[in-house]
């Protein structure tokens, strides 16, 4: 059982984690989801006592991590696969960790076998692939037969077989009644592994619910409507009718319409009354991945801009290029060349200001997200800043 209460971490002016309160229960795999830079690893480090929270607290099994009398026997963690001295052999690495918590040497060979590294146990871990490094990290986590397990992005760099192995391992560990907390930025991975989801974006809690609940709450159904090819006036007519009835028809790339906001029978009735023939009328469910992206799209820290190759054409030194500002740039820390001290923080959807052509990609994709939150939405960092005026 991991319990976090009001967990907040600031690095200078940057708020990495803000007021996180959640619980991770035993007997289930809990997925910890968020885009890159959303504070997953910081939260994990705070759980493990590596980083001290600015405020709030987190306990493991009711105790602060630093107060555990024999931490590896209670909590196993894979933080990052390469947190290993590359010059040491895999076996000696595990042996030193085992000795640190009084675990017998034969357990080292046991876990090497569990993760499938017994052949390379004597090899220096410098030469390990990313997947082998992950396995070594998992071996270290399993060493103490702990009740609580934390994995930070465990499937990174693993081959399909390895991914399947990790997935089954985590499910098995949870079924034994352990607390399994797994971070990932891949919703698709979590959908197959986790029972429960905790989603954060920009360090703030966005969802804390079971996977099924997450799907029903967040995935929006839509209808795909196709009118006869080569008769565009039919489609225009239908679009007008649907809009009049309160639906939101959006053209899809292949000539079909994606309609939200209207039940299927109603669409059929409307088309019938308008005298439009339909080639297709099918119900669809947005995937979990889409639901996740919709939820976190306002909180993506690192967003790419369209490469206009303008920098190659003109040779004008100095002057910030559009889109080069740090998205998380805060009023408190004006950077040289940043023309915005005191100016409002750029709203979440389009950091760096509008760039010509940047609004297009969303429409071109297979699905169109609902309109982004308005620009004047309350900025989560404003509160965090105000609370700690230094």
């Amino acid at each position, binding site marked *: 059982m991991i*319990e976090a209460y009001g967990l907040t971490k600031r690095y200078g002016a940057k708020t990495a984690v803000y007021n996180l309160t959640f619980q991770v229960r035993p007997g289930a795999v809990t997925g910890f989801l968020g885009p890159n830079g959303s504070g997953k690893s910081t939260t994990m480090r705070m759980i493990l006592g*590596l980083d001290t929270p600015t*405020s709030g607290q987190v306990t493991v099994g009711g*105790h602060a*991590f*630093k107060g555990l009398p024999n931490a590896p026997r209670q909590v196993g963690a894979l933080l*990052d696969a390469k947190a290993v001295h590359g010059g040491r052999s895999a076996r000696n690495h595990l042996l*030193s960790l085992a000795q640190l*918590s009084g675990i017998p040497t034969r357990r080292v060979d046991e876990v090497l076998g569990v993760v499938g590294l017994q052949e390379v146990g004597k090899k220096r871990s410098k030469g390990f692939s990313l997947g082998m490094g992950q396995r070594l990290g998992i071996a270290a986590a399993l060493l103490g037969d702990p*009740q609580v397990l934390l994995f930070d992005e465990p499937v990174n760099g693993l081959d399909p077989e390895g991914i399947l192995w990790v997935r089954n391992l985590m499910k098995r560990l949870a079924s034994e009644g352990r607390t399994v907390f797994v971070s990932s930025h891949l919703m698709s991975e979590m959908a197959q592994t986790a029972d429960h989801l905790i989603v954060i974006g920009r360090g703030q809690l966005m969802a804390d619910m079971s996977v099924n609940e997450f799907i029903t709450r967040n995935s929006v159904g839509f209808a795909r409507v196709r009118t006869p090819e080569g008769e565009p006036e039919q489609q225009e007519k239908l679009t007008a009718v649907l809009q009049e009835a309160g639906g939101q028809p959006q053209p899809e790339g292949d000539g079909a319409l994606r309609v939200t906001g209207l039940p299927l029978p109603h669409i059929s009735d409307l088309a019938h009354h308008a005298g439009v023939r339909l080639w297709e009328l099918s119900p669809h469910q947005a995937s979990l991945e889409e639901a996740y992206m919709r939820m976190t799209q306002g909180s993506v820290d690192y967003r790419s801009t369209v490469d206009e190759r303008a920098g190659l054409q003109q040779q004008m030194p100095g002057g910030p290029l559009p889109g080069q500002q740090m998205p998380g740039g805060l009023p408190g820390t004006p950077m040289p060349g940043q023309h915005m001290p005191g100016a409002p923080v750029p709203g979440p959807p389009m950091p760096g200001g509008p760039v010509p052509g940047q609004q297009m990609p969303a429409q071109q994709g297979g699905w169109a997200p609902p309109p982004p939150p308005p620009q004047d939405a309350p900025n989560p960092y404003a509160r965090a800043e105000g609370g700690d005026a230094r």
Partner: protein
Amino acid sequence: MSTQQQYQGQVPPQQPGRPSQPQQTGHAQQQAQPQQAQQVPQQQAQQHGWSGQGGGATYTSPIPPRRTHLGNAIVSEWTKIRSVRSTVWTIAIMFALVVGIGLLSALAMSGGQYTGNPLLSSGLFGLMLGQICVITLGVLVITSEYGTGMIRTTLTACPQRGRVLMAKSLVFFVLAFVTTTVACTITALINSALLSDQEIPSYVRNSSLADSVEGGRIVADSGEWLGATVGAGLYVALLGLLSLAVGALLRHSAGAITTMMGVVLLPLLLAMFMRAEALETVRDKLMEYSPLNGLGALFGTPMLPEDSASGWPLLGGLAGVTAVALVVACTLLNKRDV
């Protein structure tokens, strides 16, 4: 009643000698906050119908966990230090430098005239170079963990950070002391075997050097033997331990090694360029407290000719500085994020 209090009631009392001070102060500040804070999750837990401890579904390892202690950390650090190549290399090079240079200089001087330097003093030359290896190893013992990220694994496995630093210090210090002392003893034996039958010029018999001649052979008294073996080993091991503390403070290999090189070499280098009369006191102080002077004095050859210090007071001073650096390093290690 807060969980923290319950917990402290269950565990056995703190073991003596365990560095618990920094943790306790850390908790004292948080104590007030968690007391109200913890009630909320606890209540929620009851509402949801699951309990953190002792719940039926919760896994408990069949082998109950034992409380760990400094001994575990020392065994672990010994495994770590012996299983990387940098240890083998630095100590092998130190050995080669100390014994090799000692042997070469003894061979070069044997059969010549006695110059008036103490019998074992030529061991200093090799050790001046050899100590750089020990300093490097001292720094690497801690900074290699920061450089590779291993420190996060270590401190997750042992959140009692002071214990980790203490175990590292002890293991490294004993290793450095034993190897350096052995290397210095071998060199001293070589010197005594090859140089004691040097030709003794007639002026020696009437000067203050007459003490070091006994029955026509050049000898070293027990104080000289102690200084050139155990004293030198202790001195260099302490310098290595200071390097470890500096490494823990700076958390960067190159930075810490450079700093230690500066500490060892700069005072003497600066003093060499202070030729002006007005700077004489500063120059003499720099000479006197230069780490190299301490080592030289242990071999009976202090930097200032009129200085009669044995080197042991400077060794005590170095021990004091090292202790302070270790305490600061431990305090910061407990405070900083890793």
